C-alpha cells in the first residue's frame, strides 16, 4: 500500500494543496510572516512526518516541480527587460549598490559563521541567503552546501527584510526611493520586493531589478572567492 505515495501525482498534488492553503491563509491574515511558501513547506513536512512517508516517495513528484526552477529563473530576464529603461538611467548606482550589497552580505555571513564556529557546509548554505531562491540553491550546491538549509534561510531573510524595511529606511535615513528599493531588493529579494511595491512604484521596480543583478553578482563573486 505504501507505494501509492511513490506516484508522482501524490507529491505534486500535496504540494499544490498545501501551497493553496498557504495562499488562503496569507489572504486572510494579510501578514508577511504567513508566507505561502513557508506554510506549504511546513504543512507538507508535517504530512510526510505524520504518515511516515519517505521524502524519496514525495520527491517522485517533487522532482518534476523542481525541474521548473531553471525556466522560472530564466524568466527573471523578462522582469529585468521590462525595466531596462530604469536600469539604463540608473546604471551606475544600481551596479555599485548591488555589488557592495552582495559583497557585504556574503562577507558578513562568512565572518559570523566563523565567529559562531559553523562548519564549511553550513557556511556555504548561508552565504547566498540574500539572493533569490533558485540562484541561491545553485550557489549553495556548487560550493558543497545543504540546499534545504539555504531555502529556509532565504525565505526567512526575505520575510525579515520585508518586516524590517520601513524601520531600516528610517534608521539609515534613506530619503531616495531608488536607494530604498535597491537596498530592499539586495537584502531580501522577491519577498522584500512585494513590500517595496507597497512603498512605491520606483521602490518596487528598483527592488525587482536588484534581485537579478545581485543574483548574477553573487554567482560571479562566489566563483572567484570560494
Amino acid at each position, binding site marked *: 500500500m505504501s507505494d501509492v505515495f511513490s506516484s508522482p501525482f501524490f507529491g505534486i498534488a500535496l504540494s499544490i494543496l498545501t501551497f493553496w492553503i498557504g495562499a488562503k491563509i496569507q489572504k486572510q491574515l494579510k501578514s508577511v510572516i504567513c508566507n505561502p511558501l513557508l506554510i506549504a513547506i511546513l504543512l507538507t513536512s508535517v504530512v510526510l512526518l505524520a504518515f511516515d512517508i519517505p521524502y524519496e516517495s514525495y520527491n517522485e513528484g517533487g522532482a518534476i516541480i523542481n525541474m521548473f526552477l*531553471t525556466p522560472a529563473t530564466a524568466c527573471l530576464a523578462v522582469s529585468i527587460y521590462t525595466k531596462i529603461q530604469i536600469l539604463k538611467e540608473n546604471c551606475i*548606482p544600481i551596479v555599485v549598490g548591488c555589488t557592495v550589497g552582495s559583497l557585504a552580505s556574503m562577507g558578513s555571513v562568512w565572518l559570523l559563521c566563523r565567529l559562531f564556529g559553523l562548519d564549511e557546509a553550513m557556511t556555504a548554505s548561508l552565504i547566498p541567503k540574500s539572493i533569490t531562491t533558485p540562484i541561491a540553491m*545553485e550557489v549553495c550546491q556548487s560550493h558543497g552546501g545543504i540546499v534545504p538549509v539555504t531555502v529556509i534561510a532565504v525565505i526567512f531573510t526575505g520575510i525579515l527584510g520585508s518586516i524590517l524595511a520601513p524601520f531600516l529606511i528610517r534608521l539609515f535615513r534613506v530619503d531616495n526611493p531608488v536607494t530604498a528599493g535597491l537596498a530592499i531588493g539586495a537584502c531580501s529579494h522577491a519577498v522584500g520586493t512585494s513590500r517595496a511595491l507597497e512603498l512605491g512604484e520606483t521602490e518596487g521596480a528598483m527592488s525587482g531589478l536588484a534581485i537579478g543583478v545581485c543574483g548574477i553578482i553573487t554567482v560571479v563573486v562566489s566563483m572567484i572567492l570560494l
Partner: protein
Amino acid sequence: MKIIKQFGIIFSLCWIATVIERLLPIAFPASVIAMLLLLICLMTGVLKIDHIREKSDFLLANMAFFFIPAGVNVINYLDILKANWLPLLLICVITTVITFAATAYSIRLTIWLLGRRKGADR
C-alpha cells in the same frame, strides 16, 4: 498551441544553457546562463516579449511554488537545524541589516559623487 510553443521556446533555452554549462570550464549555474541568454535574445530582438508572455507570467507569478520540494527536503536535516538554530537566526538578522546599510550607503555615496562631477562639469 500558443502555450506549448512558449514552453518550447523557454525549455529549448534552458537546454542550450545546460549544454553551455557543461562546456564551460567553470561552475556557472545553467539557470543563470538561461536567464542571460533570454535577456540577450530580448535585447537583440531575436525574441519578443509576446513570444513568451503567458509562459513567463505563469512562471514568475507562481515562482514560490517551485521551491516547495527543495524546502521540504529540510525534514532530512532537522537535526542540523535543531543544533544550529540560534546562530542561524542571529546570522540572518544581523547580515540583513548590514546588507541593507551597505547597499543604501554605497548608493548614497555614488549619487553624491555623480552629482558633484556633474556640478564640476558645469
